[in-house]
């Protein structure tokens, strides 16, 4: 293959990838740009058939990425006039944060046990963990509900947070990470007479830091989006997280809903950009069969 040909192939590749990237980014960009559009402008651009499907209304249909006039009123409305948005935002934080932190602690400990300690039935138990991870939430819905009821957690965040903390994904991911720590490191510490705690604190933990970061990111992604658990376990509208609340405000005030959506995805996107390499590393680790 000549250099010129390779150049042309590469150019085509890039053009193709740009098109795909554009398609993938389209909904996100549209959400962002629409959040700066007035309600009126949104209706004008998108509502094709509402005014009785008249021809004049149809002519206006156009998907616009750049607002005719940028307005911040939507954001003002969401942040200042609707305390509900902030309330639900913090609901989401209250649900997500304990799960992430708890999962990191529990996962690191158990991941260490599965990766670096020997005990009978270890791999079988791990397989059970793996299976549990793959089960949809609905499978254990009824007993989880009954257990939450027994523990007095019903209609409280505990009913969602505790199962979240003990979800096997954290254990799985950190076990994968710690499998990558050479046994020789551990042996060295043990020969020195240091116990498992030292091995854990001084070797496993520092080396697993990227794994913990990856877990935090992946768990954040998963739990920030949580829908099933709150709609089934929380009866009060006011306690629902943002994910559920947003789906409900979409009716009617779409301009406001777009602004709320942008605010909703902002922390996700910022943290993604911040910890992207950890996220990638975490995904790669999840794909390594060990």
């Amino acid at each position, binding site marked *: 293959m000549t250099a010129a040909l390779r150049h042309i192939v590469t150019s085509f590749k890039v053009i193709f990838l740009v098109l795909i990237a554009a398609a993938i980014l389209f909904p996100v960009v549209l959400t962002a740009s629409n959040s700066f559009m007035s309600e009126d402008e949104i209706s004008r651009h998108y509502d094709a058939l509402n005014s009785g499907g008249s021809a004049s209304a149809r002519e206006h249909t156009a998907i616009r990425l750049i607002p005719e006039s940028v307005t911040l009123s939507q954001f003002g409305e969401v942040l*200042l006039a609707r*305390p509900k948005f*902030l309330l639900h935002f*913090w609901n989401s934080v209250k649900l997500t944060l304990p799960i992430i932190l708890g999962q990191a602690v529990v996962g690191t400990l158990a991941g260490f046990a599965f990766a670096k300690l020997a005990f009978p039935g270890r791999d079988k138990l791990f397989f059970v963990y793996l299976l549990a991870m793959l089960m949809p939430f609905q499978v254990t819905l009824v007993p989880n509900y009954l257990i939450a009821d027994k523990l007095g957690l019903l209609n409280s965040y505990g009913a969602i947070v505790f199962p979240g903390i003990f979800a096997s994904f954290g254990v799985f991911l950190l076990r994968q990470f710690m499998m990558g720590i050479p046994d020789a490191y551990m042996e060295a510490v043990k020969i020195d007479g240091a116990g498992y705690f030292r091995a854990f604190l001084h070797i496993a933990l520092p080396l697993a830091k990227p794994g913990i970061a990856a877990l935090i990111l992946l768990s954040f992604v998963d739990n920030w989006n949580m829908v099933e658990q709150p709609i089934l376990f929380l009866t009060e509208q006011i306690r629902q997280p943002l994910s559920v609340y947003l789906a409900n405000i979409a009716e009617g005030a779409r301009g406001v809903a777009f602004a709320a959506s942008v605010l909703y995805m902002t*922390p996700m996107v910022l943290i993604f*950009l911040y910890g992207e390499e950890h996220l990638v590393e975490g995904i790669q680790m999840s794909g390594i069969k060990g």
Partner: protein
Amino acid sequence: MQRRKKTLRWMIGLFFTLLLALTFLSNTIQGMSLPKVSVEKPETGGLDLDVSGEGFLQSAHTAQLFPEGDWKVEKIHISKNDRVSQGDPLITFDTSSTKRTLEDEKTRYEQERIQLEKMADQLKMLLRSDDTTGVDNLKRDIEMQQLDMQMQQRKIGDLQKQITEGGMLTSPVYGVITSLNAAEGAAAGRGQPVIEIADDASGYQFSITANSDDAAMLRIGDKAKVHLDEEPRRSVEGIISEIEDEPEGGSKKITFDLKDANLQPGLKAAVSITSQSKSFGMQIPKSVLEEDNNGYYIYTVSEKDGPLGAAYYVSKTYITIKDENGDTVVTDGLMPNEQYVKESSEPISDGDRVRY
């Protein structure tokens, strides 16, 4: 790369700080734009039905005095609101015109008497002439003349009586002059009463107007204390004698009878009767009531724990009206310590957050 991370760290921090700040400020921001309401707890119990009012005493009966003739008023002996006894002189009329008529009538009588004499003489003459037809005719004429003279005599008598009795108008009853339609020197019209006198003997009464709902518990024959606007103040007992609907509807005219000496017409009388309705419930002012298809409702305030501290929300509470008076209703459907919205700075609707 390191710079990018630093920027992102800043942005994440800024984002959460901003939202946190807005959350903490949101109550304040909200507070400024929320409608302000004032609330009150309803009082429990039956409805106080207050009937009060003032009226001016009127006698039950008024004597109307008319002049006897078309005379000029010569002298008025009393003035309005004077208390008079039976027989007291009230007005002296100038009866000279009637006197003159009397003289004229007397003169005419004299003339007729002379005529009669003349006719008697003629008869004497005719009897002698043996004219029977002429005699009969003359006799009839003489009879007519005599009848005319009797009439004239009665007329004179009437006029004399008119002058002696009517020249001086006196009070037929004990009472108070309530109206005086005469001025000295001016003629008093015959058709209208020159003087009206409230008759003490018939008693006094006054009326007030009250809301029908408030008056619902009042009955004819009920006794009430009536305060009179006199120096020194005193109160007498009044009895409800009449309750009738006012033509406009929604209100009633209540008449009280007073039996007491020394009353005067026009005296201001005030009465205040408080009775309790039979129904029992929450008392709510009518002004806060609203109505929609489902009936009457009021807004009540409830407290909910918001993200930061308590927040207050109004909600529609439907009530059933058991009883009402002019400005208050007695209702069911409200908790005793529930607070209702009395006033709000802006129109509110169900579920609104408010401050107070």
